[in-house]
């Protein structure tokens, strides 16, 4: 493992290479540690809340992400200009770009995240599968790596059994996935999937996994310091639309203590096997009929839904990332991590559920966000804020904590009921309807539940 510097000290000035609510989140954690903050912005984000909160801003380029937040040269130039000694990449954008992490280190700055080698390893989803196998972590039956051509795909699929999922090795986050239900479908879809993957991710490699029809998405949060790894238990993220999570909770309501322990142990084993440093999440599919679970991927960054874990463990994950990046060892032993209560997060998006989730940019007015005991809102909204058309549609994460799941649901309904959000359409009504649904209240759902529920007009 290459090391570009022998010693690290606590970070003095942090460059935030992201935007929106996560940029605000990182600025808050940095400020609490006495770290100066410099934010990279596109010209569309000059009036953003994160730009107002940061100690300084550096403009990266025009609004288009490809010319600003994803423009490595522009970001590196901005980091140089900022005098920052560390960079936090947030989630999305360059957070899992190993080239970017390498480049930051070559500049002699700290990258707040794992080693570039680990990012590269886990970033290739087919290779990550192999790491899991080697660490003794159960994986979905599938190909040992990328499938070289359609003939191999057909032979592999016959062994795996239909339906088969085609997954882009350079994909992740629910992107670049197709399902083939027969040899014929597989022939067509394989070629399409390769082409799409090449266009979308710059890498046409496809691997195959058995399609697990009814499963729950369970993920384990881990923290490592390069020598030790601890877990911070689980989250369930089964409520997804088009493979994007919309409601998450911690802990996962469907796990027995025994399965929880095995999942957490598997996650730690995998992270240990790569000497993981920083925050990371290991994602699994869990079949609650058979009690089996299968590794699907590891995300080597902070996740959108991290606040749920923070609320039930009392640990500030972004703070811990900054401390670890500054050279500290883990500040907690595994037995100091305790679960207390239940947290639920609703992601509010600028989309109109009445019109097929049509994106709804616009200017926010009459804003009222909820507060009170056990209510947390991670958002970049303010009254008069212009929701930009250039980036994703996340407006706010509303997170609640309470003693039990039923109380947390009541509290979330209370909190969502306080929200006023004029000037744009949002998915707020969808969340209220979901929380009123008996299946959601009894946690009787799985990863295909939401789309079926929406299609049935229940939403």
């Amino acid at each position, binding site marked *: 493992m290459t090391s570009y510097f022998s010693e690290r000290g606590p970070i003095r000035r942090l460059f935030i290479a992201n935007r929106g609510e996560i940029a605000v989140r990182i600025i808050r954690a940095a400020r609490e540690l006495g770290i100066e903050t410099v934010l990279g912005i596109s010209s569309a984000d000059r009036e953003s809340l994160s730009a107002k909160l940061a100690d300084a801003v550096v403009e990266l380029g025009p*609004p*288009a992400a*490809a010319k600003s937040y994803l423009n490595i040269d522009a970001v590196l130039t901005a980091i140089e200009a900022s005098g920052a000694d560390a960079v936090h990449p947030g989630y999305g954008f360059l957070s899992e770009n190993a080239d970017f992490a390498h480049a930051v280190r070559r500049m002699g700055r700290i990258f707040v995240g794992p080693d570039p080698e680990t990012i590269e390893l886990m970033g290739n989803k087919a290779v990550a599968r192999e790491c899991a196998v080697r660490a003794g972590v159960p994986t979905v039956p599938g190909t040992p790596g990328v499938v070289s051509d359609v003939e191999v795909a057909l032979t592999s699929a016959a062994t795996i059994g239909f339906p088969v999922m085609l997954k882009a090795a350079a994909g992740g986050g629910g992107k670049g996935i197709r399902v083939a239900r027969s040899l014929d479908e597989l022939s067509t879809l394989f070629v399409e999937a390769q082409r*799409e993957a090449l*266009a*979308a991710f710059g890498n046409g490699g496809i691997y195959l996994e058995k399609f697990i029809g009814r499963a729950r998405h369970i993920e384990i949060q881990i923290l490592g310091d390069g020598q030790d790894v601890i877990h911070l238990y689980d989250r369930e993220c089964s409520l997804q639309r088009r493979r994007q999570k919309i409601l998450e909770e911690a802990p996962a309501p469907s796990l027995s203590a025994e399965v929880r322990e095995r999942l957490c142990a598997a996650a730690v084993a995998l992270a240990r096997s790569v000497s993981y440093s920083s925050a990371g999440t290991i994602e699994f599919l869990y079949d609650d009929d058979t009690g089996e679970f299968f590794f699907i991927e590891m995300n080597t960054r902070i996740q959108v839904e991290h606040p749920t874990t923070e609320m039930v463990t009392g640990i500030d994950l972004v703070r811990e990332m900054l401390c670890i990046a500054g050279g500290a060892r883990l500040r907690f032993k595994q037995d100091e991590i305790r679960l207390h209560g239940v947290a639920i997060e609703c992601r509010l998006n*600028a*989309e109109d559920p009445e019109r097929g989730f*049509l*994106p709804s*940019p616009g200017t926010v007015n009459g804003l009222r966000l909820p507060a009170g005991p056990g209510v947390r809102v991670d958002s970049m909204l303010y009254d008069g804020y212009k929701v930009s*058309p*250039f*980036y*994703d*549609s996340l407006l706010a994460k509303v997170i609640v904590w309470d003693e039990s799941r039923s109380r947390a649901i009541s509290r979330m309904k209370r909190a969502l009921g306080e929200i006023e959000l004029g000037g744009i359409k949002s998915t707020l009504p969808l969340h209220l309807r979901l929380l009123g649904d008996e299946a959601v209240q009894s946690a009787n759902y799985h990863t295909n539940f939401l789309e079926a529920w929406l299609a049935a007009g229940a939403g």
Partner: protein
Amino acid sequence: MSEHNVLTPLPGTFYRSPSPGAPAFVKEGDVVTVETVIGVVELMKQFTEVLAGVAGTLSAFVVDDGDAVDSDQPVATVAAP
């Protein structure tokens, strides 16, 4: 023959091909039908197809690949009887 404007259904960024580096959906002079996809509009990372809306020949694009567009903005013209 008259020139018909093709309007974008949404605001966002207009692209002439399905992904960066891929061939354009159509070029000037191509014959189009009502349902021919002539471009996509990206809005908040979602892509919506822009259909020709009328049968004829695509005369010209009036915006460039990657231009920002508003709802109901003309992006191309189709020569149709």
